[in-house]
C-alpha cells in the first residue's frame, strides 16, 4: 500500500512537471491536458482529471488513492523548443522506454534549458523580420534599413526591460515607445520615407501572434476559461503596444 502510494506520488510529479513546462512555454491547453493524461495512463493510472487555466493547473489521479495537486504558473513565454522536447518525451513514455525516475530527470533537464538561440541572434532575427515585413506590406526598399533598426531596437528594449522589471505590460509599452521614437526621428531627419509603414512592420515582433492563435484554438476546443484569459492577455499586450505608439505620435 505504502509502495503504490509512493509510486503514485512520483507519477503525479512527472505529470505536473510536464504540464507546467508546456504551459509556461505557450502550448495549447488541449495538448497539455492530453500529454498529462497520456503520461499517467502509460504508467498505469487511467482515471485522471485536469483543470487548466493559463495561470495554474489542477491535476487529479483517481486510483489507487485519490490524489490532487495544484501547480501555479506565473510566467508565460514562447518556447517552441521546450514544447517539442516534452512532446517527444511523452511519446517515449507511452512506448514504455522511460522509467518514472528517468522521465523526471529528463523533465528537470528540459526545464533548466534556456533559449536555444542567443539573445543577439533573436534581436537580429527581429530586425530581419521587421525589414521583411516592410517589403511584404508593400513598402519601398529605401525604408528597409530604417525598419530593421527600429524593429531590432524595439525588440531589444522590450526584452531587456522585461528582465529588469517583471511587468510585461511595461516592457511592451517601452518597446513600442522606442519603435515610435525611432520611426519619428528617422523620418524627420530624412533617413526613412513612410513613417506609418515603418512602425507597422517593426511592431510585428512584439505582436502577440501566438496568444491570439492559441486563444482561438482553446475557445474552439471548449476550454472557455483558458481561451478567454489568453484572449485578455493578447488584448492587453496589443493595447500596450498601441499605447506606446500612440503616446509617441501624440507628443511629436
Amino acid at each position: 500500500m505504502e509502495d503504490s502510494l509512493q509510486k503514485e506520488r512520483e507519477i503525479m510529479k512527472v505529470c505536473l512537471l510536464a504540464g507546467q513546462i508546456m504551459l509556461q512555454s505557450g502550448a495549447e491547453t488541449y495538448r497539455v491536458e492530453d500529454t498529462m493524461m497520456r503520461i499517467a495512463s502509460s504508467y498505469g493510472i487511467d482515471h485522471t482529471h485536469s483543470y487548466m487555466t493559463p495561470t495554474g493547473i489542477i491535476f487529479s489521479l483517481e486510483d489507487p488513492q485519490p490524489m490532487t495537486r495544484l501547480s501555479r504558473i506565473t510566467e508565460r513565454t514562447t518556447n517552441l523548443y521546450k514544447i517539442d522536447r516534452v512532446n517527444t518525451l511523452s511519446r517515449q513514455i507511452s512506448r514504455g522506454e522511460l522509467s518514472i525516475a528517468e522521465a523526471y530527470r529528463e523533465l528537470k533537464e528540459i526545464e533548466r534549458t534556456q533559449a536555444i538561440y542567443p539573445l543577439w541572434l533573436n534581436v537580429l532575427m527581429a530586425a530581419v523580420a521587421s525589414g521583411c515585413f516592410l517589403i511584404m506590406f508593400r513598402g519601398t526598399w529605401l525604408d528597409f534599413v530604417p525598419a530593421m533598426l527600429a524593429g531590432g531596437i524595439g525588440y531589444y528594449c522590450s526584452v531587456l526591460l522585461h528582465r529588469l522589471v517583471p511587468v510585461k505590460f511595461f516592457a511592451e509599452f517601452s518597446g513600442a515607445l522606442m519603435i515610435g521614437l525611432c520611426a519619428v526621428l528617422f523620418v524627420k531627419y530624412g533617413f526613412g520615407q513612410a513613417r506609418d509603414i515603418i512602425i507597422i512592420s517593426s511592431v510585428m515582433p512584439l505582436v502577440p501572434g501566438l496568444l491570439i492563435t492559441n486563444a482561438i484554438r482553446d475557445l474552439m476546443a471548449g476550454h472557455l476559461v483558458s481561451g478567454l484569459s489568453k484572449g485578455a492577455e493578447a488584448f492587453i499586450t496589443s493595447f500596450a503596444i498601441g499605447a506606446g505608439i500612440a503616446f509617441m505620435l501624440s507628443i511629436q
Partner: protein
Amino acid sequence: MYIEQILTSFIASAAFGMIFNAPKQSLIQCGFAGMVGWMLYIWLQDIGVLRVAATVVAAYCVTLISSIFAKKYRKPIIVFSVSGIIPLVPGGLAYDAMRNAVENQYDQAVQSGAAAFMMSGAIALGLLLSEVTNQIIRKIMISKAS
C-alpha cells in the same frame, strides 16, 4: 514583384520561428508554411477577392500545411503554424485604429478597429475549417482501416 514577396515572407516566417525558439531543423518548414500562406493572401487580393475571404483561405492553408508537417516530422503542430499565421495578424489595421483614436478621429478608429476584429475572426474561421477537415480525414482513415 512576386519574387521579393516570396523571398521576404519566407525569411520573415523563419525569423519568427527563431524568435519563438523553434527547433533548428524545423525552421525551413516554418518559413515554407508562412510563405505559402502569405502568397495565397496577396495573390487572392490581387485577383479581386476581399481581404477577409483571402485571410480565411490563407489561414486554412497554413494550418493544413502545418498539420501535414506535424505528422511527417512528429512535432506539435504549433511549431509550424504560429510562424505561418503571424503575417496574417492584422497589425496594420490595429495600428490605424489606435492612431486615429489618438488623433480624435473616432469614426475612422471604429472603422479600422472593426476591420481588424473581422480579420481576427477570419483567421479563427480558417483555423476552425482546417481543424474540421483534419478530423474528417482522420475519421475516414479510421473507418477505412477497420
